[in-house]
């Protein structure tokens, strides 16, 4: 990991003053111990006209891993190979920021006792960083991100993307950029800005930074961060980082290991929480947010909308409309004991509990993480006894029959079926309609025809990267009719959300009502009873 800081000068203001500014003698090689390795400071050149100081941070990757062990901060020794085959020794990451602060502490404070006044003077600096990780995390990364962060501060930015591997040009560019920053600036400001912005650029998993270091970073932003046009971005990426810290500390690593057993990133497998966040928070096309259709943006918690960042007021979101439609359907059938199958982070559970007619809600999800998030969101631990007695959250998988699901008035499958591979759908159908057999079932799923109305969604893309399929209105209706016929239910299908003449509404809802008691325990495949099945489609929007 390497950084060089150069300046130019004249006889009056010799470049070699850099030694005084940095408090490091140009003719010495100095070694400093930092928390993650040894930092070496030396001057490749020094003179009146130009002077360059360099810091080489020699990181021991094995010590790095060992350092994290047993700290309960995600430093688990077994977590991931990622820790062993790691860019940290090479890339200018937050470790470099921490080292800068350790080695150039005085310079960063803007103090230069030997040459009073020197530190207060701006002078031309050129800072070279051969490999800066600039993660996109849902936005354009690489050089663009570097420019976005540094140019508003007055830096002239030269940033070039580094290809992943010239042998495989099809792999494209890496997330690293070679960066040269030039500006007429006070050294202390330059260092502070690097100290804050390098970790923001990095934005990567950085398990070994203690939470208090995050606060130190924020303190370093004083004086310039508040007016930065990308304040929101910077803040969000901080929070994302902090969130990932807590996450690795609190969440279990079993899933990550399974992902790794399959040569996959943990986020590819442990992505259930975002799945459930998206559908409910997506607004209609003329609203402020957009569907999550780009694969990049599904890379984990990093892009969770920051609740602290003020958002402009926007129209009622599709998620809210959908919940209202579901509650209305449940009220229609008079359901008081309700299953929320695939409850995610508990948005619907929360809404159900606000309806006093509902006496019992069983939220089921396969993701332990989603259940933990739901319990937090619902504040289960602080709920009054009477309220708490109405709700239970349990892990379950809808491809396995489950006795706990039997005997309910209604079950809700809100934006769930499309997260299952189509060949696995019959298993869910049997579990819900054949085995659990609630009095009514409410199913919602996207209407794929409507996707053309999302301007931000590229043609042919599904709304969420984990959607295994999205159905047209005709496909959904055909499915609903078949299910109803096979399992002894009647069904009505209705649109949810703004109704478009050509493509319908963004969401479609099916309300099934049980018409036959048969088939519950028979273990036979779909109880193709002679029960008359009624299917109606309602033309009007739910709202």
């Amino acid at each position: 990991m390497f950084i060089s800081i150069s300046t130019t000068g004249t006889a009056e203001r010799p470049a070699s003053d850099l030694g005084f500014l940095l408090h490091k003698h140009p003719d010495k090689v100095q070694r400093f111990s930092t928390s993650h390795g040894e930092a070496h400071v030396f001057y490749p050149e020094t003179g009146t006209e130009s002077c360059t100081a360099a810091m080489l941070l020699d990181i021991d990757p094995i010590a790095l891993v060992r350092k994290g062990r047993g700290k309960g901060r995600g430093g688990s020794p077994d977590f991931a190979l990622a820790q062993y085959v790691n860019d940290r020794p090479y890339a200018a990451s937050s470790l470099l920021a921490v080292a800068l602060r350790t080695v150039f502490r005085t310079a960063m404070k803007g103090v230069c006792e030997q040459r009073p006044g020197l530190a207060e003077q701006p002078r031309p600096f050129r800072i070279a960083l051969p490999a800066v990780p600039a993660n996109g995390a849902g936005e354009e990364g690489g050089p663009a991100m570097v420019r976005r962060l540094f140019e508003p501060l007055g830096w002239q930015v030269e940033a070039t993307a580094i290809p992943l591997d010239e042998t495989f040009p099809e792999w494209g560019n890496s997330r690293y950029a070679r960066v040269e920053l030039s500006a007429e600036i006070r050294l202390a400001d330059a260092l502070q800005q690097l100290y804050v912005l390098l970790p923001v650029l990095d934005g990567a998993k950085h398990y070994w930074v203690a939470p208090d270091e995050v606060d130190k970073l924020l303190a370093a932003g004083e004086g310039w961060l508040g007016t930065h046009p990308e304040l929101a971005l910077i803040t969000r990426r901080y929070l994302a980082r902090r969130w990932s810290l807590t996450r690795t500390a609190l969440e279990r690593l079993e899933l990550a290991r399974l992902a790794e057993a399959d040569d996959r990133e943990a986020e590819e497998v442990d992505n259930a929480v975002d799945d459930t966040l998206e559908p409910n928070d997506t607004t209609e096309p003329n609203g402020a947010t957009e569907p999550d259709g780009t694969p990049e943006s599904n890379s984990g918690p990093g892009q969770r909308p920051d609740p602290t960042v003020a958002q402009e007021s926007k129209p009622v979101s599709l998620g809210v409309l959908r919940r209202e439609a579901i509650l209305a359907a449940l009220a229609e059938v008079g359901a008081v004991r309700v299953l929320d199958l695939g409850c995610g982070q508990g948005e619907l559970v929360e809404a159900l509990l606000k309806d006093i007619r509902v006496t019992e809600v069983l939220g089921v999800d396969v993701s332990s993480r989603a259940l933990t998030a739901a319990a937090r969101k619902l504040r289960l631990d602080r709920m009054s006894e009477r309220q708490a007695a109405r709700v239970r959250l349990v892990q379950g998988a809808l491809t396995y029959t489950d006795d706990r699901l039997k005997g309910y008035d209604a079950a809700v499958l809100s934006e769930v079926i499309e997260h299952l591979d189509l060949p696995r759908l019959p298993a869910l159908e049997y579990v819900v309609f054949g085995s659990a057999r609630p009095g009514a079932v409410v199913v919602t799923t996207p209407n794929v025809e409507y996707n053309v109305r999302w301007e931000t969604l590229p043609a042919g893309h599904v709304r969420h990267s984990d959607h295994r399929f999205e159905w047209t209105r005709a496909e959904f209706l055909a499915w609903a009719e078949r299910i109803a016929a096979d399992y002894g239910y009647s069904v009505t299908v209705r649109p949810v959300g703004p109704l478009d003449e050509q493509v319908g509404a963004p969401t479609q809802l099916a309300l099934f009502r049980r018409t036959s008691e048969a088939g519950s325990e028979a273990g036979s495949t779909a109880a193709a009873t002679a029960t008359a099945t009624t299917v109606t489609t309602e033309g009007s929007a739910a709202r």
Partner: protein
Amino acid sequence: MTNDTDTDTGTPAERPSTRSLPVTDVSLVVLVGTSGSGKSTFARRHFRPTEVVSSDFCRGLVADDENDQSASADAFDVLHYIVGKRLAAGRRTVVDATNVQPESRKQLIKLARDHDVLPIAIVLDLPQEVCAERNKARPDRQFAAHVIPRQQRELRRSLRGLEREGFRKVHILRGEAEVTAAEVVTEKRYNDLRELTGPFDIVGDIHGCRSELETLLTTLGYTLARDEQGRPVDAVHPEGRTPVFVGDLVDRGPDSPGVLRLVMGMVEAGHAICVPGNHENKLGRWMDGRKVTVSHGLQESIDQLAEESEEFRARVRAFMRGLVSHYLLDGGNLVVCHAGLPEKYHGRNSGRVRSHALYGDTTGETDEYGLPVRYPWAEEYRGRALVVYGHTPVPTASFVNNTICLDTGCVFGGSMTALRYPERELVTVEAEREWYAPVRPLHTDAPGGREGRPLDLQDVAGRRIVETTQHGRVSIREENAAAALEVMSRFALDPRLLAYLPPTMAPVATSRRDGFLEHPEEAFLGYRNDGVQQVICEEKHMGSRAVVLVARDEAALERRFGLAGSGAIWTRTGRAFLNDGELTDAVLERLRAAAERAGLFEELGTDWLLLDAELMPWSLKAVELLRRQYAAVGAAAGAALPEALAALRLGAARGLPLDELIGRQQQRSADAAAFTVAYRRYCWPTEGLTGLRLAPFQVLAAEGTNLAVRSHDEHLGWIDRLVAADDPAAPILHRTGRLLVDTSDAASVAAGVAWWEELTGAGGEGMVVKPLASLVRGGAGGRGGLVQPGVKVRGREYLRIIYGPDYTEHLGELRQRSLGHKRSLALREYALGLEALDRLAGAEPLWRVHEAVFAVLALESEPVDPRL
């Protein structure tokens, strides 16, 4: 106020000086007596302090005052709670409360019944003056004067009805003398034979098949003793083994009296143990003159017994009456009964325990033959004791959750089975003929596993123990099952196809050789120490693991796996390997055609094959990982290190002492370059089938057989034929190089080392060393634990991908790696994999196969150093 004390008191003169009060070791003892009758003193004298729960004490617990009568309701809640917990744990409990009212006793009797223990009453019936006097002596007891007489009246009214209330033993002590003379004697339960440790030979259902029973006993090594008419009346084993019969000796078959003569003889001589079956129960009731429906082969017994003497019939009646529904044996590690028993009933005593032991549990439904559908209790069994039972005819006996059903339907033309315990070996004798036509065909699945029932969450979720033939009980922790559930339900293929997941493999013991972390010498030495002479070294392909199920035609897959299609290819975690269905089909078609041409379907008598393979290139599946991780590290290093070096050299040119740093950075630079070269070898572009390489190395299973236990040269023989039969124009099947090594021959070992050096020198990942015979046990005579089924020996350069570009600079620290957990995990997963294949071969129901497959996935989420 009447004083009836004198009239009801017995005549003390007739009583013996001490009187024994038998009390069962696991029971609920209810003391009955008025306040001041001396219950607490009595309890203290005869029972351990922890056995006694007193209402006064509970009052104190909830109200800080043992005499606070207003706290009685709460106090009794606590008392009942404690009693319930103790009884659930099988501990004798004495309730010290007045218990003079029927309602209070009723609750206690219910508690005893709920926990299937005997309720026993001990009544202290003392003159009320004595009680009043005693209470007066206690300053803390301030009762109103009417309390004791009232209690006394209630007590007297209760005395006669105690047995009717449900107490199985009632001891009434009248007067102080009797109380003083009483002596509590602890009795064992009838079903408690824990002191008998065997060895046992447990025999399944017989149903009058005397001849097969004789053959079975002889096969087991027993010598039969015969009466003067040549009929067997006893059997003795030279090594003193004890036969245990699980019942259903009679009915349906040709010679129920003959079976009874033999078994009764053995039991009466103390040579055997027998529990009753439902058929004994019914025959006994018939013999007692009770009204029973003569069906299910009872008529045969009735007719046959009519031929016997009255004396013999009387003996049979007595025998039937004396049978105990189930037995605890071998320190509680073995439970034998006829129809199976959940753990909470073991050693318990109640009507429902007996009923379950004789008839089992049913769901309340009946099947298409009008027979009750059995409740799958064994599926839920998680107990410590091995439960051996019969009752439900199954084609072959197999262990389910530490239970085994030994009824293999001899009378229906199946076989008669015995289990050697503790060896856990099955001994089977075929039926001589079909003696009785079955109402329904023998089940094709394990008892309780209803044909084709969908998978249930109970099959996989939570903390579980999976019984494996090769490695005993493997336990799965809840958090691992939870993670596996998420992956299995969100990402994996249909479990019907997913008959196997590959186990993890441990690396070779760490090498001390300079510059190496892994070296083949340790592998050969390790196997030599395990007593394995012949090992096979197989080239380790660096791609991604793929399990392939290939069907001969669509119908074959549907027939066997319930889903139409050409087969499936999946990853270590059960995901579809290729997202592209067409490409998957193209690969499967190549394999199918090759297997057809090679004649493998014919030879193995199957229309499908399950293969273990490596699919290359690595970049095919891992391209995202390569981009984000491996190539990224190479790119960062490639950008950063040269620039740092250039600056260092400038500094050195200025005369700065930077030589050491330059040296180190140069080394890093070289290591990083080597790292990039290492991963690049396993990446190349593919287009459809072009560039794709599949290297199968094992044929795991075919119809009706687990082939994974066959020797590796046999496997590679099949594989070579498969590879040779591939389309020569554009082959995708890839051979696996191999070398046989004799671990006891230095020259052979040296050749093995040289082969590895050659492989890795040419950029190969390394090799896997396996015992040639595949499944091998260590220890004397191969009766010890499993030997590692293989160890990987990875190349020095390849390990840069695993341990980081410059791991070679840190070998000292890295050698401290600990392999124990990984090796243990490898064995457990291996055994589970074999278990899944065994269950698949045995055409067991889906949940049984899935249970083992799911367990492999769950274990894969155990914390273990991922670099191993």
